[in-house]
């Protein structure tokens, strides 16, 4: 075959390779783009390497196929050359008779080669260039559109919620405990009403999301109701903000509200009932300590300074009572008002009394305040305690996190679906919880909520029995053993 023709053949092969690569590239980009778009719309995530693999694979495959399909054979190339350069089938004849050793064929080959040598360099047809460019542009557009289209988020399966006997019984029990409690009548009725409404609302099958929202709403309502008459935080904060010894009194009042937590541990109804009578014993010393600084200061003052200090304390206390939403008949407000009035009266007694007597009057006034304040604060502390108790119980029943920094984490209970917002109940626990220590679970045998650790052994033995009876598959047995290992390790 003449070198001239070979030169054209090499150029044709290069051209075919170029178009094949371009075609492969377009196909790779297009397929990758389409795949990316489809997976994004289906909320399926692949790693970048997977797309790279697909794109490169498609590019290579299409390039190879295109090259072998469109690489011109000698016959096709010779035909193209004859047509392009108007050579009257000279090149085709040269190729077809390449092996013929006749003299005429040899002359023909010489003639064809000479004509081909004189032919200009082949140009790429504009239509081919345009169509390749258009295809590449379309492929790039597809690819980059797929990149910048936002992925559809996988819809979070909304587990359905069934308000079964378990939760109904527990909620009914809670309502009964609230009725039994020593809450003031008005807030008690309101809390019971909220719980009844919650129970009625959850009887129909609903989504877990709706259930959680309802429970949180109920807890918030109950918190508002239980702490509606909470004047301690108002006056306590005002007094604590004073720059005198009265700040101790303010701190003492505030501390009284959480006096029920002195024991620590989980707040069950039994704990509430046990701690109720102990509240006053816990609060009285706090208030007594709160007034001690004031008394000590007064006892160190003489003459006019004594009276002045007395009047200042009286005025400060009176000022704290002003401009608040608290009713004047509020017990704590009355106690503080009485203290203020008494200090003012003592300050107005004049010089006919000795300091010892006056200090004694002041001490009496403080003691009186302590007694009345303790009574008032006991009621308010009880409300706070009940609020915390109800919150914990609701959290435990419905496995809903209701923590506001004041309550412990929820335990297991109920049949609500998994919730990403829920406090973790895994081994090691979040918030420092350990299984069997702070977490509780509903014990159907006793109908009460008990620490998880007391039921763990029973739970484990039942499961082990089922395993021994072969009712659990070998694969599941592995997971069950691991589960209890985690629980026990956390339990310790």
């Amino acid at each position, binding site marked *: 075959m003449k070198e001239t023709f070979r030169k054209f053949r090499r150029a044709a092969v290069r051209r075919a390779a170029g178009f094949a690569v371009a075609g492969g590239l377009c196909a790779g980009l297009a397929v990758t783009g389409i795949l990316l778009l489809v997976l994004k719309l289906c909320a399926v995530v692949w790693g970048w390497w997977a797309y790279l693999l697909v794109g490169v694979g498609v590019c290579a495959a299409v390039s190879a196929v295109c090259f072998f399909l469109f690489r011109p054979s000698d016959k096709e190339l010779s*035909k193209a050359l004859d047509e392009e350069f108007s050579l*009257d*089938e*000279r090149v*085709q*004849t*040269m190729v*077809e*008779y390449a092996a*013929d050793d*006749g*003299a*005429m*064929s*040899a*002359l*023909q080959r010489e*003639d*064809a080669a000479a004509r081909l040598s004189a032919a200009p360099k082949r140009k790429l047809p504009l239509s081919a260039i345009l169509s390749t460019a258009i295809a590449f542009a379309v492929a790039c557009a597809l690819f980059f559109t797929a990149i910048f289209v936002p992925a559809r988020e996988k819809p979070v399966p909304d587990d359905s919620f069934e308000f079964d006997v378990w939760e109904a019984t527990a909620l009914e029990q809670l309502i009964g405990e609230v009725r039994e409690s020593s809450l003031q009548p008005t807030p008690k009725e309101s809390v019971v009403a909220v719980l009844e409404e919650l129970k009625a609302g959850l009887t129909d099958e609903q989504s877990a999301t709706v259930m959680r929202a309802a429970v949180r709403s109920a807890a918030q309502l109950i918190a508002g109701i239980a702490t509606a008459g909470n004047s301690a935080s108002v006056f306590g904060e005002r007094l604590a903000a004073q720059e005198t010894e009265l700040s101790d009194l303010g701190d003492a009042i505030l501390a009284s509200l959480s006096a029920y937590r002195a024991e620590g541990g989980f707040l069950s109804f039994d704990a509430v009932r046990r701690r109720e009578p102990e509240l006053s014993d816990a609060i009285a010393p706090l208030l007594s300590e709160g007034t001690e600084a004031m008394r000590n200061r007064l006892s160190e003052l003489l003459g006019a300074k004594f009276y002045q200090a007395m009047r200042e304390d009286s005025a400060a206390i009176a000022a704290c009572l002003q401009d608040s939403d608290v009713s004047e008949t509020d017990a704590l407000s009355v106690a503080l008002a009485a203290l203020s009035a008494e200090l003012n009266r003592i300050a107005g007694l004049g010089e006919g009394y000795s300091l010892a007597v006056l200090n004694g009057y002041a001490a009496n006034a403080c003691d009186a305040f302590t007694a009345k304040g303790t009574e008032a604060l006991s009621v308010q502390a009880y409300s706070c305690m009940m609020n915390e108790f109800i919150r914990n119980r609701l959290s435990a029943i419905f496995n809903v996190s209701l923590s506001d920094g004041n309550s412990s984490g929820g335990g297991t209970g109920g049949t609500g679906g998994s919730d990403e917002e829920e406090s973790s109940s895994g081994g090691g626990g979040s918030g420092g919880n350990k299984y069997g220590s702070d977490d509780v679970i509903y014990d159907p045998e006793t109908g009460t909520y008990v620490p998880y650790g007391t039921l763990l052994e029973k739970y484990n033995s039942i499961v082990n029995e089922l395993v021994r009876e072969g009712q659990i598959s070998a694969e599941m047995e592995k997971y069950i053993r691991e589960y209890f290992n985690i629980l026990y390790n956390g339990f310790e």
Partner: protein
Amino acid sequence: MDETEKVKRFSEAIARIKEQLRTDVVGQEEIVENVIIAIIAGGNVLLEGVPGVGKTRLVRSLGRTLNLPFARIQFTPDLMPSDVTGTNVIEKDENGKMNVVFQRGPIFANLILADEINRATPKTQSAMLEVMQEHKITVSNTVYRMEEPFFVLATENPIEQDGTYPLPEAQMDRFMFKLIMKFPSAEELVDIINMTQITLDENATAVIDGETILEMRELSKSVPMIEDVLRYAVNLVTYTHPELENASETAKKYVKYGASPRAAQALVTCAKVRALMNGKFNVSYADVDALARPVLRHRIKINYNAVNDRLSVDDVIGKLLEENKKLSR
């Protein structure tokens, strides 16, 4: 002599022949070229033209140029076959003995002008056509071969059809070409008059001989022809048959009878000669297209649809060529 020399001689010979013929024949370049092709290819030509366009002059001039004996046979209705081929006569030799001697007829020449062949009777036509095909005659069981190259140029007068015997299709098929000699243009007529005012004699001189013609014939057979071009030529002939499966739409609509296999042979043989004449060493599609009308116009019978659509046989061949280009290339 190697092939290169032969090809060179071929080209030079063709150029000299054309140059000589131009001295006697004004215009008619295509006719001259096709006649030369037919001679080299070994075929015969049927020439159609009105009287006075130079048919006889062309053949006579060709005979002078090729240095070949020329004979003109004027066909008339009373012409007998023996008037063409020759006959046995009884002659007295010098000893007075009576011998039967074969008196050769005018057919025993290399170049024959069979003028107005359609005026002869079918019997005489057959005698003529037999020798055209086989290049031999048989008289009284004796076979007489014609000297090669043997070429017959027959003419038909398209005007006077009364009292004529049109050649049957089977006989027409024996002619390699049918050429139509048109009336010369005004400029050509001026040149003819100027030339013939000087002399009516042919001026062409011999430039080659019969042996060279035969060499050229052998040489042309070795011109390569690719498969695609061969199929192109073959398809052109098969597309003329409306009864075939792969018949063209044109043939189905306008053709009554298609061309014979001789048409395909003629196309291929003459295409090779034409390629070599034009300085090419291979046959191209253009060569086949250029020879399509001369080869096919007397071999195809058009039907009434073509007549109704005012299409001549050449028009129909033109349509066939267009279809063949689309389908075969």
